[in-house]
């Protein structure tokens, strides 16, 4: 396990209520309703198929602009929070930002976003932080849980949740029982080589 200075920092998992405005949430929900087909179909053999829409896949200039703005606000929030606690920090970049939709039956078993137990190589070791913005609450199940921390919750809509990618923050998502769970997820990295240009 990598001993990053931010892992275990008392402010994480960071829960920031009302991070987006209600207008922004409604804009996102209208977009998702109008562009549901853009996600494609789900595939029982491909866990993420038909469930994500990344910034480059979004074919709506207004929505792209909002996603970029949100990404910058998330980076600003996390970078400022780290500098307050740890002193000057190198630039933080967005790796990816995407909508994620979770139909009934989908769940995610506990995992970390940048590390594997036992030191097994992880496909995304540069993902230093994950962030999730909660867009709706008209679904059943779907709670995020952190088994190592004894935390399980469904953050209110408009909330931003941020946590490090280390094993301290193993997390999973309980099965959605009905409705469609919608989130806007992104990963942040200090590694400029994995900077997805969101300018």
């Amino acid at each position, binding site marked *: 396990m990598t001993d990053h*200075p931010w892992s*275990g*920092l*008392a*402010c*994480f*998992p*960071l*829960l920031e209520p009302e991070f987006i405005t209600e207008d922004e949430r409604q804009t996102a929900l209208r977009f998702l309703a109008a562009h549901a087909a853009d996600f494609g179909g789900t595939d029982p053999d491909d866990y993420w198929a038909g469930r994500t829409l990344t910034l480059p896949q979004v074919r709506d200039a207004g929505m792209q602009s909002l996603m970029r703005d949100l990404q910058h606000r998330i980076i600003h929030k996390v970078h400022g929070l780290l500098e*307050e*606690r*740890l*002193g000057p920090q190198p630039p933080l970049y967005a790796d990816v930002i995407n909508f994620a939709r979770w139909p009934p039956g989908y769940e995610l078993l506990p995992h970390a976003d940048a590390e594997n137990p036992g030191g097994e190589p992880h496909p995304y070791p540069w993902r230093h932080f994950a962030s999730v913005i909660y867009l709706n609450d008209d679904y059943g199940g779907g*709670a995020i849980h952190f088994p*190592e*921390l*004894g*935390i*399980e*919750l*469904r*953050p*209110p809509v408009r*909330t931003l949740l941020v946590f490090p990618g280390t094993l301290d923050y193993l997390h999973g998502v309980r099965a959605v029982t009905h409705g469609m769970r919608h989130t806007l997820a992104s990963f942040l990295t200090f590694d400029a080589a994995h900077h997805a240009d969101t300018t």
Partner: protein
Amino acid sequence: MKPTGRLTPDTRRWIIAQAEAGQPADALLKALVAAGWTEDAALDALESTLRLKVAEIGSRAPAPKPAQP
């Protein structure tokens, strides 16, 4: 540069147990500082833990029933 504390699951559980037992936040703050935490880190720990706990409790609350005529 502000010193930091490491918030372990045990400390989270202790904060929640003390809060549920009715201990005021300033008493918990003093206890953490006495245990070697900086005040800033202790405040972070209290805020993060209690905010998450409130959200957790809110998650379990039944959704309000629609108004009936």
